[in-house]
């Protein structure tokens, strides 16, 4: 295109050396992937030859990796390339032989980006490819130029040469000579380990220095015992169970191994994924739903797309569908286990309790399992929510463990079904119980509601205690707390501190600025403010209400306030600590004087 052309369009100038460097050194996370790319090209060449010239011989020969003398030679008896193809495909970055005329990746090939060979520049400065096309052999046109073998040499600085070569049979030989200080990547032990790592499941005979490294049957096609054995090697411990997985839309087969140890739900689970039986990666994320943290999978997918670096999966619609199907399979396993083998389900929950709770926050089926299987701390002992629902239609919870400890016995005595919501996910699950039981009344325990459930004292007691209450009100005013006289069980508890709580939908603690002036949580808190409830059923309190000595009442009320705060594990402000000290010393002084 010249500057006179009316469109004014220009092509980008490409620094070939820079592109080669970029793709070979920065696309991949480690030089080790060069083995995978060589293996992939050889497998695709074999597949292409099987497709096009089936029965022409040679296609069944093994793919051979030969090491020695600082070189690696990879030989396949695949489709090979003609000289024009060598120019077109090996020397054009981004042009893959594995795409059709429309540029769509061929379904049965592993590679598709036309950049794989560049990864060899990670370990070598020069790549030599000796290739002879099987197509021209099959065409029986021996005299044609296309029938000759071709030698292509590519260099890391971006130039290449092509010249006639020698090869007896159709196929391709790739020769790498190690770059200085990279010799270890081409050593026999390294190559063997890497070929086994990436290609052990390939349905081809792959050999390294004559030794076969591919396995006959992938784990997901083996019997259950062998599958569990594979899982044991994968996890380093015997799996709790192995779940067979299949998603026909994605051409996916595999197995999920249920971890026999607890895993962190917030940590993203990574799985071993093969694409057409070539290892994509050991730590592939996002193939399973986030909640499926309790399994590790080994999967082989035919239809899922890899990213260009072939180290993760491309996050497209098919991956989303696959993720959903795999999630369904795991959920079905869990539901089935709960229904058919409760003892084993309990064993599973003993390990993955937290994970299932996390899942139940979003999933009704899991919520059902939690409701049915997991015991919660309640005012009536450890019960499942299902059992508690069978006894009560109204359930209350506390948001703090300490609050539960303080109120549990009182709630039990008042017939209130109280649940300790102080643990992770408990409140969320309690609030979602209406999904299972729409008529259920589940709420946070409101202090004022509890106060109304405590028996009021009779008018005679109320009258006799009026001086006591007046003194208590004066003493507690500094703590922003109101005294209340009630009669409740257990009688051993002399006082109870009830915290005020803002109510109504949308009311929350962080209302600030101008909103607070209108929403008036302070006003509400004042109305339902903190109360110190004296238990008239307690003998000490009963005697105290008829004590005439104002000083003793003041000190006792102060001491009981401190006691209530301490038993409820509530933080003591400096004023509270000073009050407790004052009360303690004052009561000691009184006792000494009286004694």
């Amino acid at each position: 295109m010249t500057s006179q052309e009316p469109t004014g369009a220009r092509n980008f100038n490409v620094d070939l050396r820079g592109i080669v460097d970029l793709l070979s050194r920065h696309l991949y996370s480690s030089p080790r992937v060069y083995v995978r790319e060589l293996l992939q090209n050889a497998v695709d060449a074999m597949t292409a030859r099987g497709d096009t010239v089936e029965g022409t011989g040679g296609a069944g020969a093994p793919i051979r990796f030969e090491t020695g003398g600082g070189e690696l030679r990879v030989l396949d008896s695949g489709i090979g390339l003609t000289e024009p193809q060598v120019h077109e495909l090996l020397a054009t970055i981004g042009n893959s032989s594995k795409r059709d005329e429309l540029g769509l990746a061929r379904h049965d090939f592993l590679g598709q980006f036309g950049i794989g060979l560049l990864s060899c520049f990670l370990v070598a400065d020069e790549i030599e490819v000796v290739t002879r096309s099987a197509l021209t052999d099959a065409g029986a046109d021996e005299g044609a130029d296309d029938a000759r073998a071709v030698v292509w040499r590519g260099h890391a600085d971006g130039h290449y040469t092509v010249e006639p070569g020698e090869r007896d049979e159709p196929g391709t030989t790739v020769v790498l000579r190690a770059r200085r200080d990279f010799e270890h990547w081409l050593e026999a032990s390294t190559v063997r380990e890497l070929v086994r790592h990436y290609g052990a499941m390939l349905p081809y005979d792959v050999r390294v220095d004559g030794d076969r490294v591919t396995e006959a049957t992938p784990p997901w096609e083996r019997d259950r015992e062998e599958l569990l054995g594979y899982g044991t090697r994968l996890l380093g411990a015997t799996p709790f169970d192995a779940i067979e997985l299949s998603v026909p839309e994605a051409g996916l087969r595999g197995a999920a191994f249920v971890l026999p140890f607890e895993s962190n739900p917030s940590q993203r689970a990574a799985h071993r994924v093969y694409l057409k039986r070539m290892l994509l990666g050991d730590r592939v994320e996002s193939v399973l739903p986030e909640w499926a943290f309790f399994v590790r999978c080994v999967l082989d997918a035919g239809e899922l797309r890899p990213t260009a670096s072939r180290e993760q999966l491309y996050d497209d619609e098919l991956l989303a569908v696959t993720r959903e199907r795999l999630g369904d399979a795991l959920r079905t396993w869990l539901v089935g286990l709960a229904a058919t083998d409760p003892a084993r389900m309990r064993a599973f929950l003993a390990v993955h309790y937290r994970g299932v709770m996390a899942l139940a926050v979003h999933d009704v089926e899991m919520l059902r399992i939690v409701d049915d299987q997991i015991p919660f701390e309640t005012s009536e002992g450890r019960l499942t929510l299902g059992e508690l629902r069978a006894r009560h239609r109204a359930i209350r919870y506390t948001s703090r463990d300490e609050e539960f400890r303080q109120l549990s016995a009182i709630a039990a005595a008042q017939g209130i079904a109280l649940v300790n919501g102080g643990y992770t996910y408990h409140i969320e699950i309690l609030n979602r119980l209406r999904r299972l039981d729409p008529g259920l009344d589940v709420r946070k325990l409101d202090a004022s509601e509890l106060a109304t459930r405590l028996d009021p004292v009779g008018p005679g007691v109320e009258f006799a205690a009026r001086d006591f209450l007046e003194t208590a009100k004066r003493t507690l005013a500094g703590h922003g707390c109101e005294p209340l006289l009630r009669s409740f069980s257990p009688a051993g508890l002399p006082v109870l501190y009830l915290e005020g709580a803002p109510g109504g939908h949308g009311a929350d603690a962080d209302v600030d600025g101008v909103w607070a002036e209108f929403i008036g949580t302070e006003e509400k808190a004042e109305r339902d403010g903190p109360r110190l409830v004296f238990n008239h059923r307690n003998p000490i309190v009963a005697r105290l209400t008829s004590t005439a000595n104002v000083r003793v009442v003041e000190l006792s009320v102060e001491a009981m306030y401190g006691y209530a705060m301490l038993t409820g594990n509530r933080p003591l402000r400096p004023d509270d600590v000073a009050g407790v000290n004052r009360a303690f010393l004052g009561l000691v002084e009184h006792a000494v004087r009286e004694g």
Partner: protein
Amino acid sequence: MAPAGREELRDRLNAALDLAGGGEDDDVAGQSYLAVMEGLLADAEAFGDPETLFGVKVIYANALRFKEWEKEPREVDAEALAVLRSCLLTWNAEPYRFDATDVDNMWTELHRVVDRYVRHAPEPAEQVLRLLDELERRCPPDRPHARYALGELRVRLEARRGNAAEAERLWRLQLARGPAREHLRPDMVAALDASMWARLGRHDLAVAALAPVLAGRLPVTSGDPHEVRLLMPYLHTGRAAEAAVAHRRTWRGPG
């Protein structure tokens, strides 16, 4: 009884809105509407879907106008404002997540609550002004109708303070913006403006405020004739004949 799903909750919400009718404050229907919305809100909270919960909360705030108060109406207004505040913060955090109608409804409800603070509740004007500032801060410029509605409240708040000059300046600014059909009934705004100017003694502006309605440029949505508000302004501006015509047209004898 099966647990509620998203579709079912939406259906129930629409049914509840039918129960609310045209916004008439009929006690029995209003109480049923409120009771239905309370149940619906509990189910939506249990369902946990943020979009559905947002829509239900906004309508619940609307239903709260039928809630009986213990000491004073501001208790209910405060609860409605708290609900709407939580909606507003959620919407601010993820503006494209929620249904456009639900968001429109939220601004309408916010206007309704603040309108009560402007007209009825004895909240200090400075405090209401700060609330309006906060709402404007949270209302992006791409919602001109919501901004208009807030501006309309400012005009009447200034009028309540007796600040006629500032009210007039803001009112003329509002006229230039045009009415907010999404949130307010334009004829009702004009009628409220006319009453406001009449109370402030600016009878010429009262007549001007209702002129578009009387000229038929704004559709009348209320059953009551707005013209009745102009009897005194007509007389004060020496338009006795028009006052007499308006009186004849709007006055209805018993039976």
